[in-house]
């Protein structure tokens, strides 16, 4: 049995349904990231787990115990808010100790717990200060300390890094991951940043309009997205989508990309797709990540399904570690990810390699993966 279980959770505000039947499970010690565009209901979902918002129907269980109607303080959870929500009138030490004070933990025990947490987070020198005297990163640490000190069953993080500048965000991301690895806590984390989701999660749940699109490990979400939305949302730069069709000959299906200005490209069905379900002439959308589109030399030599095409280069974006090359294939913009040293200039006719082992196919009508 999973540690955190959510069954058919629904949340309505009047006639509008914000959460439309969410089913989720998370094992003890897992790191679940809820990710989706703004307004998809991910924060609402987190708030219902916290008990800050009531649910219309469904069940939420922690460790087998149904907590639907329990007060937030009785759920044995801790939450880190986007705005940190530190009490401005109390010192850092008092902030961290507040929950224990409310639970009538003796002062000596409180002090010891605060000291331990402060040591873990390296904020010992800040304990006597007030939140107003701290920098963003320090506030973030204190907010985490306040959650950590109680050793709750589940940690909830509501976009904790979105108020930090880019560099600090990366540092704190590592910090959170380290914390999770060293303490083995169960975490539910909300973000709209798909890189945060990929780097931190053991499980990712992608939401859109209050519906769960896909739940899986980061590699499942990245390599075999369940539908066009997940494929497009996860990954940066995002996945390339190319119109293609199925051609069947002698019982074997292959995929053909028709081009107006050049010969069509034909190749075997990518291994992620179920070839038996493809009818002759059916339209499909081919999804391929930028890193599977390269120059011919750096194409994956172990790939069983490589294809090449020539096309003029439109834009070259050097990003330091990589160079992104934008071209056009069958009328669609395609971004390729190349080694930084690759010599390529705009306007040049360039030979691209497609690693179709990494490609996925979508049904344009249902948007689902085939």
């Amino acid at each position, binding site marked *: 049995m999973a540690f955190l279980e959510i069954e058919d959770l629904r949340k309505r505000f009047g006639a509008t349904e914000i959460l439309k039947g969410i089913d989720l499970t998370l094992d003890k010690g897992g790191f679940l990231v809820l990710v989706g565009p703004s307004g998809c209901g991910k924060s609402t979902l987190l708030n219902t787990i916290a008990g800050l918002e009531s649910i219309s129907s469904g069940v939420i269980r922690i460790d087998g115990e149904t907590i639907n109607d329990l007060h937030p*303080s009785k759920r044995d*959870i*801790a*939450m880190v808010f*986007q705005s940190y929500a530190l*009490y401005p009138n109390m010192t850092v030490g008092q902030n961290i100790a*507040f*929950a224990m004070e*409310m*639970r009538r933990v003796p002062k000596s025990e409180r002090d010891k717990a605060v000291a331990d947490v402060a040591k873990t987070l390296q904020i010992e020198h800040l304990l006597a200060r007030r939140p107003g005297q701290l920098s963003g990163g320090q506030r973030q640490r204190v907010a985490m300390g306040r959650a950590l000190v109680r050793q709750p069953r589940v940690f909830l993080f509501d976009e904790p890094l979105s108020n930090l500048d880019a560099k600090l965000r990366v540092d704190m991301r590592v910090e959170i991951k380290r914390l999770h690895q060293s303490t083995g806590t169960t975490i539910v984390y909300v973000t709209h940043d798909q890189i945060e989701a990929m780097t931190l999660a053991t499980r990712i749940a992608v939401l859109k309009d209050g519906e769960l699109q896909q739940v899986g490990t980061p590699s499942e979400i990245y390599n075999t997205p369940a539908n066009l939305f997940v494929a497009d949302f996860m990954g940066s730069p995002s996945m390339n989508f190319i119109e293609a069709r199925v051609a069947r000959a002698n019982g074997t299906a292959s995929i053909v990309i028709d081009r107006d200005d050049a010969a069509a490209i034909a190749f075997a069905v990518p291994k992620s797709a179920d070839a038996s379900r493809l009818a002759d002439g059916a339209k499909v959308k081919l999804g391929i990540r930028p890193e599977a589109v390269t120059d011919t030399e750096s194409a994956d030599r172990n790939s069983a399904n490589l294809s090449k095409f020539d096309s003029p280069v439109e834009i070259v974006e050097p990003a330091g570690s990589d160079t992104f090359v934008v071209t056009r294939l069958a009328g669609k913009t395609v971004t390729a990810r190349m080694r930084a040293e690759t010599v390529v200039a705009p306007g040049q006719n360039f030979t691209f390699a497609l690693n179709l082992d990494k490609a996925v196919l979508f049904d344009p009508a249902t948007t689902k993966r085939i």
Partner: protein
Amino acid sequence: MSAADLLSAPPSREPSRTSALTRVVIYGLLGIFAVIYILPLLVMVMTSLKPLDEVTGGNMFALPRAPSLDAWAKAWGTTCVGLTCEGIKGYFWNSIKMVVPAVLISTMLGALNGYVLTKWRFSGHRLVFGLMLFACFIPFQSVLIPMATILGKLGQWGNFFTDTIGWSLGFGNPTVNLVIVHTVYGLGFTTLFFRNYYEAFPTELVKAAQIDGAGFFQIFRRILLPNSTPIFVVTVIYQFTNIWNDFLFGATFAAGDQMPMTVALNNVVNTSTGVIEYNVNMAAAIIAAAPTLFVYVVAGRYFVRGLMAGAVKG
């Protein structure tokens, strides 16, 4: 202004002379108005320091020849208020005894209302707030008679308790009555102040405290109140000034030796017998105005800040 505007704008000629002239005009006007505003107080203070013959025989703006505090002592200790001649000191304490509880109770209840109306919203909270706002627009005069009826009832309770247990429990006591009247009347204003302040108060703090296990009153006492100093000061100043300066309720609901300072001052000044002792009247008036002045001076710097708080985000 963008950089382009800065570049295209013609350079201003002799900016120092223009601003010097402007400065003279500004400070000149400020000086004139300062004199106009300070003059009445100055005349009051000077008059209160003069003996009576110098007041009646001399120039109002002349400095006192031999300043003395005799008039102040008389106003405080021996002047006649109505038929008793024991000065205004008793009435001064009457007012303090009435104002302090009335201000504190109405402010605390207003804070509690604001807290509930913003952080514990219930269906119909808008209507309730609307009705409380409406209370701000009810004129004093229109509540006199219904209030008198209610206070009459309380007086009957007081008599009943006096007869049965030997103590009225405060029911029917004029000071208690005035505290009730001012608390009820001030609630609309204090609620308005605190609701608007707490509207901008981050709700995440309340949520965090809930998760931390703080209850309704713990959140109020530990999280909201300690972060409400500016609006607290504004409300206390506003309520203190209004209640201390109130004459109508005081004159209507408290009589004899229970009347507040404002009513007593009226009785000192409006005496129809004997010589009008301007110096004593002035001293009494300054004593009557002193507490509100004191509150403004001590807490005034928060006042403007508090009124502006929440006006702009950030």
